[in-house]
């Protein structure tokens, strides 16, 4: 990728006495190094991409420390990597986006947890829940329960987060259980500071290698009969050991309060929201001094029954603040109180919503219910006024606006190579009729938004081809599967292509070959054009993905017979190729490779290059498309076929006409789609392509002046 993390890498080198300033996820990364981690792996995905991106770029420094960094092909391979800690005293950490990533990794996690680990294992998952999240279904918590792994949910304070990383490894080693750490989006991006420690080079590392492999030990295999023993160990030894460690080192925090006969149990990650909510109902101050005692669970699993019971016993009521469903913690607390015959009334999902992010307003609403019931003397006028005010104001704005505001979903970047393919697909369906479209995860999922609104299903990353296996045999017309190169390597190659070939399926697969896993932050993959290629390229503006043929050779090697590669910006050709695939007599797997390098990456490469050329006064050609306002018909068919942010509309300059005309605004990168669409779809003739030649050569200037004279003579005013 073209982004540089040099600044972040500097922060990783900080030592004792320094203060770290920056984002949460980078603090976690620093915490790993302070804990003497020996190997790090994972798969990119918001909100934890940075952890791996920075480590990968920090390779030289990692080599200094003897830390191995692996950019895994998917979460399953990342989880499997943790197998190193089963036999050896190696501290390992992996990271990915949850819940999706954890689902992909499930098998390896289960077989890692069964024999248990010797070296500490920390799995940093981005708990992608609430505002700005893309996969809010399911909770990572379920995996901690079913595979019996510890689940850390640290208070979103950088110092505490780093501290919990270090404890996480020790906890894992004490209990032989892998530890997961869940970080919510805002926690990953929170900007704060903490006092650093020196980084610890791992005792066993790439610089201090092991002489011999471990001896054979059947107990370390996830294989019967020992798995039966493992199941016993989980309950008899590992969980108790974990609970001992959690209690001894006070990983969960007890916050006293004046109303000692009440209490709130809260996930560490929700602590800040809870404190602000308590402030809003007048039960806490800005420094976290609270009237109601708190039990802050920096470890969400396992709970320490004694700790919870001691907290609850003798109280008039306890409220459990737990985000997401099902309410595992509340249920566990209810069970353990019942077993101990502790009669304290327990509240949670009866006062707080089961689904949705626990923002301050939501929490405060629940808290004021709790307070109203158990602190009737506590004045809540201001809180009630505030909540009521919000409701009324929203209603008032809605009525003032009359119509609902238009949404602004994310869309393809300016000049994105994937946009033209959806334009072609829209046109192809006019020729061959509508088709079932199995969509996938990746930037191309934006094709499900306006103006294209295409796609019938999204089953998972790289799953599109597999997800139509039951559809296409049942349908007269062929189904189309769309997949990115990211999804292809993540698992589309096996779950999709291999299966389709083996079953001799009549399927159409379109692979977006843009060279990177762009949606997660343009990380490199095996089919990314090499840096040397980028170096050698004379014209840095051109797309370079065609220089890497790994996907093509893989498909051929696997036995794909119908394979077409089309440059995405050639809309007409893409339309024809799609029609061929939909109507061809060949009944096997038909693969179309849509080739065009990610425009984000291209622009990051092009901008400095152009700047340097202009600085040296060299010739530069800048392309921009435009619309003739007096020719544009104001129907906006061009926009319905593009949606490019720079192809927008403005008031019609013609006083006779009322509908706005199309206009290409600054920022157009001259990708050529406007022109290609104008031809492919026979749009109105208002589009022009302008080539601006800066620092032209002398003969160019001469020719142009001569030509100009004649042209001007021909032109009317």
């Amino acid at each position, binding site marked *: 990728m073209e982004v540089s993390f040099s600044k972040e890498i500097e922060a990783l080198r900080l030592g004792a006495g320094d203060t770290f300033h920056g984002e949460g996820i980078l603090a976690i990364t620093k915490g790993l190094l302070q804990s003497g981690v020996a190997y790090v792996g994972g798969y990119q995905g918001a909100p934890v991409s940075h952890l791996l991106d920075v480590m990968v770029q920090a390779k030289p420094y990692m080599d200094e420390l003897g830390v191995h960094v692996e950019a895994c092909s998917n979460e399953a391979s990342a989880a499997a990597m943790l197998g190193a800690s089963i036999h050896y005293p190696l501290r390992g950490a992996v990271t990915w986006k949850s819940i999706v990533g954890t689902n992909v990794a499930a098998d390896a996690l289960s077989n890692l947890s069964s024999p248990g680990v010797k070296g500490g294992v920390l799995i940093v998952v981005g708990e992608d829940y609430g505002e700005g999240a893309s996969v809010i279904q399911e909770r990572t918590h379920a995996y901690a329960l079913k595979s019996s792994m510890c689940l850390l949910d640290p208070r979103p304070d950088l110092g505490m987060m780093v501290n919990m990383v270090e404890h996480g490894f020790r906890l894992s080693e004490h209990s032989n259980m892998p530890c997961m750490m869940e970080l919510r989006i805002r926690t990953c991006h929170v900007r704060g500071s903490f006092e650093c420690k020196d980084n610890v080079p791992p005792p066993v590392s790439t610089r201090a290698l092991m002489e011999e492999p471990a001896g054979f030990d059947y107990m370390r295999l996830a294989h019967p009969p020992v798995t039966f023993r493992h199941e016993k160990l989980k309950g008899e030894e590992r969980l108790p050991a974990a609970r001992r460690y959690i209690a001894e080192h006070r990983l969960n925090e007890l916050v006293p309060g004046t109303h000692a006969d009440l209490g709130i149990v809260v996930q560490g990650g929700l602590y800040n*929201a809870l404190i602000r909510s308590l402030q809003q109902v007048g039960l806490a101050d800005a420094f976290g001094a609270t009237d109601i005692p708190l039990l802050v669970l920096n470890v969400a699993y396992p709970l320490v029954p004694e700790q919870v019971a001691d907290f609850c016993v003798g109280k008039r009521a306890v409220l459990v603040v737990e985000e997401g469903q099902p309410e595992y913690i509340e249920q566990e607390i209810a069970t353990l109180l019942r077993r101990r015959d502790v009669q304290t009334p327990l509240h949670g999902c009866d006062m707080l919503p089961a689904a949705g992010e626990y923002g301050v307003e939501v929490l405060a609403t629940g808290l004021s219910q709790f307070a109203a019931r158990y602190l009737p003397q506590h004045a809540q006028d201001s809180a009630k006024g505030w909540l009521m005010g*919000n409701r009324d104001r929203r209603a008032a704005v809605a009525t*003032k606006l009359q119509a609902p505001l238009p949404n602004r979903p*994310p869309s393809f970047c300016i000049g994105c190579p994937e946009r033209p393919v959806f334009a072609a697909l829209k046109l192809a369906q006019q020729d061959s009729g509508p088709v079932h479209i199995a969509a996938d995860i990746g930037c191309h999922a934006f094709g499900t938004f306006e103006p294209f609104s295409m796609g019938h299903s999204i089953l998972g990353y790289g799953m599109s081809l597999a997800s139509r296996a039951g559809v296409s045999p049942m349908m007269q017309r062929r189904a189309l599967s769309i997949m990115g190169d990211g999804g292809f390597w993540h698992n589309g190659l096996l779950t999709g292509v291999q299966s389709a070939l083996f079953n001799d399926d009549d399927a159409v697969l379109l692979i977006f070959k843009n060279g990177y896993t762009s949606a997660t932050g343009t990380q490199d993959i095996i089919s990314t054009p090499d840096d040397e290629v980028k170096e050698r390229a004379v014209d840095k503006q051109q797309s370079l993905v065609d220089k890497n043929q790994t996907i093509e050779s893989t498909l051929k090697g696997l036995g794909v017979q119908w394979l077409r590669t089309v440059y995405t910006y050639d809309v007409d050709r893409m339309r024809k190729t799609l029609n061929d695939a939909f109507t061809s007599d060949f009944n096997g797997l038909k693969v179309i490779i849509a080739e065009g390098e990610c425009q984000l990456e291209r622009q990051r490469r092009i901008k400095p290059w152009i700047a340097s050329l202009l600085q040296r006064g060299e010739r530069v050609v800048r392309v921009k498309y435009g619309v003739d306002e007096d020719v544009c018909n104001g129907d906006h068919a061009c926009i319905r076929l593009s949606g490019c942010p720079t192809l927008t509309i403005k008031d019609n300059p013609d006083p006779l006409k009322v509908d706005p005309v199309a206009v290409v605004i600054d920022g157009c990168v001259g990708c050529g789609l406007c022109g290609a669409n104008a031809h492919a779809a026979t749009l*109105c003739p208002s589009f022009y392509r302008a080539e*601006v030649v800066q620092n032209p050569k002398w003969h160019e200037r001469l020719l142009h002046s001569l030509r100009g004279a004649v042209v001007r003579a021909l032109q009317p*005013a």
Partner: protein
Amino acid sequence: MNRTQPVTLLVCALGGEGGGVLTEWLVDTARHAGYAAQSTSIPGVAQRTGATTYYVEVFPVPLAELSGRKPVFSLSPVPGTLDAIISSELLETTRQISNGMSAPERTLVITSSSRTLTTAERMQPGDGRADAQRLLDVVKAFSREHHVFDMGTAAREAGTVVSAVMLGAIAGSGLFPFPREAYERMVRGGDTGAPEKPGKAAEASLRGFAKAFDTVNTPRQQAALVTSLLATTANDVPSPQALSPAVACLFPPSVHDMLALGHARVLDYQDADYAMLYVERLQKVLAAERAVDPAGAEGFAITREMARWLALWMAFDDIVRVAELKSRASRAQRVRNEVKAADGDIVKVYDHFKPGAPEFAALLPASLAHRVTAWDRRRKTPWALPLKVGSHSVLGMASLRVLASLRWLRKRGNRFAEEQALIGRWLDAVVSGTREDWRLGHELASCGRLIKGYGSTNERGKHNLLHVIDHLAVAPLPDASPSTRATAIAAAREAALADDAGTALDAALVRHGAPPRPVKAQPIRWMKRQQDSTRRAR
């Protein structure tokens, strides 16, 4: 219990506007000034043009005076408790306000007046843009204090990105207890950069910073900006055009401005005779309107509307017209400005044309034209000639001029005759409708809006208009009172502009007791899949 609260700021930006840098500047400024601060963000897929928000909290008491205590900051903005919202896009500002974020008694709203239109707004066949005035009204009504200015322009003029402008606005508002220098130091590069001589980029950022700082700091300047902005939002005011007295005297003054424009358009499009035909047609409408509204109580609105739509239809777009418009010197200049070419630069302009058989047939006499179009229909895919004409080159310009000179041929062409016939049908409908009921006539006249553009768009428009005329204007509806028909026509017109598939239109037609439009035959390549058994036989 200590009741001091943090100062809270919500930042709304679009992907790639540097919101991350902005929050980093703010947090670092606070830190260097000795205050506790925290920022969080929801970047999501911001880089891909989506909306994104950042949230900043600063504790207003210096750390030194907190005797070691650390404030607990919220990670997410709390509706109704914000001290300020700053946003680089007007719709996003309003969105946050509609989420209840801004409280009229507490929140300062600083927003850009500029709009980045959403796809949903841009893709409508008509005008789908949200009413900017209404958005501004919401900002005014639900903020303690508001500053509205064009951040995009401010950034462009300073040669920087909008984040620097936003920082200046925040500093200028005095929201946080930091001096101006504290902010500027961060822009220069904070601890790392040398404050003495900042780099080119930093210089630009500082210019943008200063611009916004003054704008927000000096209300008078600001008020001026707003008023100028409000002025520009009112558009579509026809510019006065010379109108020959001979023509003018035939129509009431309230029609003159539109008439002048229309007359000039038709004259420029064809010739004096054609312009005269325009005037005669319009006189028919005027006569009809005078019959129902002699006093002109409605300001002769029907005639005025017809002056607009009749001119536009009579000057229908064809290759001759396009060649004319594209080959003008004024157009070449407009392109130079649009692509922001410097004096030394060479600009090459390539025009994308794809004339099909109908475009050429249009200029042929009926018999010949029909043969051409018939041949075209027999083809598997309609014939068309994709062209990239370099209007900067001699050959390109020459060919454009040759095409433009075919104006004489147009009048003899097949399409011209067809258009005149259709215009006639519409005109008659308007005239008879007007005589029946003023509103009915007015609605029919406004239907001229459906006719625009070239090729399929133009065909679709005419198809829709004729269907409306045949089934809503003329044919009696179940309840045939003129006013109901007028309402139905208005509804149909709006629906016709909703989507190009015409789904909304058909629905509207049916709702008002008229038949939906007949399904148009659309040839598709049919592919019948072989049964599995035969496939396996391979």
